[in-house]
């Protein structure tokens, strides 16, 4: 773990991973789209709208996946004071927030044909909405300080506190949802997954993960370059 604390060695690793991530992302997303839109059957109950599940569910998974990798990187930042680990957390936040937004938007587009309203207080959609605020809180505090190192450590603490609270929030929102459960609401993940629907779902999930790693690689390299520029201009001045 400590070998990658040195920025230059870490960038070398990132540059090695990046083309693989890009390649896998493009291939799996192409196949995923083909299966989602063309080579998979409509649902007997929901009709064609079930295809929205192929972009909604992977986005929701990525929203959670990005937040946990952000919390993990933040823990490494605080325990071993690796600035590099924080660069990963800082670079992940906007990607995670975008996936969370996508999960909400596609969830709403999926809910509209089924229940006639754009927003449904379904337990999972509500938890994802609160997760979006955790992301916004992270990004807000990250650059609320003049001293970047201060902002990074404050954000790291918040990410860990947030990560501890996510399951508690999930539990209380599920509990709240069952309490106010209107009779007719169908659970949002729709019918049991039919095998022919599993392939597009898995392909899209793998594609989104590879996409995350690809964008992460780009943002990490840009971030390290900019801190190198800042350090050198400071020294030069």
């Amino acid at each position, binding site marked *: 773990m400590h070998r990658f604390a*040195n*920025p*230059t060695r870490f960038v070398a690793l990132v540059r090695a991973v990046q083309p693989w991530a890009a390649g896998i992302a493009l291939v799996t997303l192409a196949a995923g789209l083909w299966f989602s839109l063309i080579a998979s059957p409509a649902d007997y109950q929901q009709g064609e709208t079930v295809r929205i599940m192929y972009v909604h569910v992977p986005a929701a998974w990525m929203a959670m996946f990005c937040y946990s990798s952000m919390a993990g990187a933040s823990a490494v*930042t605080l325990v071993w*004071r*690796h*600035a*590099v680990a*924080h660069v990963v957390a800082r670079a992940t936040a906007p990607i995670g927030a975008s996936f969370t937004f996508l999960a909400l938007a596609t969830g709403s587009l999926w809910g509209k044909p089924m229940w006639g309203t754009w927003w449904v207080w379904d337990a999972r959609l509500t938890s994802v909405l609160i997760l979006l605020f955790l992301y916004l809180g992270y990004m807000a505090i990250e650059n609320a300080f003049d*001293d*970047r*190192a201060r902002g*990074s*450590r404050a954000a790291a603490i918040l990410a860990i506190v947030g990560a501890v609270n996510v399951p508690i929030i999930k539990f209380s929102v599920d509990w709240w949802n069952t309490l106010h459960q209107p009779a007719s609401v169908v659970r949002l993940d729709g019918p049991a997954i039919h095998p022919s629907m599993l392939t597009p779902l898995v392909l899209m999930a793998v594609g989104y993960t590879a996409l995350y790693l690809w964008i992460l690689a780009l943002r990490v390299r840009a971030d*390290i370059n900019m*801190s*190198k520029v*800042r*350090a*050198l201009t*400071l*020294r030069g001045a």
Partner: protein
Amino acid sequence: MAVFSGTDLRCVRGERPVFDGVSFRLNSGAVLELRGANGTGKSSLLRMMTGLLPSAGGTLSWNDEPIAADADAHRTRINYIGHLDGVKGMLSVAENLRFWMSLRAGAEADEERYHMALATFGIEALADTPARYLSAGQRRRVALARLVACPASLWLLDEPATALDTAAAAALDHTMGSHLGAGGMVVMSTHEPARHPTPRVDLNDYARRARGAVRTAAGMTA
């Protein structure tokens, strides 16, 4: 007799290297003066010694035992006077001083030490006035009174004489003299000309070496 020492201390503020390779050794009964132009890190070095600012490199040790191993013990040994006085305007001078005494085990019952602290800095008359009516110099005296009220072997003073009139400065010198006489230690950042030959750390030359240090690491700091 205790020894307070530091080896190859390195400090980075934000992403700016401040100093590198600073070493010192301070024995009981001695004063270590920190000198250097503004921005060379005198306050940062003092805050590092207090434990407020973690060092980016090097170690601080007490009797050659690294302080990081037992930070709590170190905190019982020190008295820190920073730029800010730490005096609450809504509380009276007495309430302020007694509060700081109550945080140190054993000091709170020590009436005699409390009165001596007030007397040393000539603020007995102000004991019951709320601190917000005090002048900056008087507030500084209340802060310095903590040195007498709260027993500690290592005093870390950041430009203690600022805002002090000659009487208060003399009182400070006198207190430091008796503290050193009793085997205490003082680390003091100051701009006044050196009055008596003492061990000194001049941070001007360490700053240049720090700037050189950035060539290797990319200036990355957590």
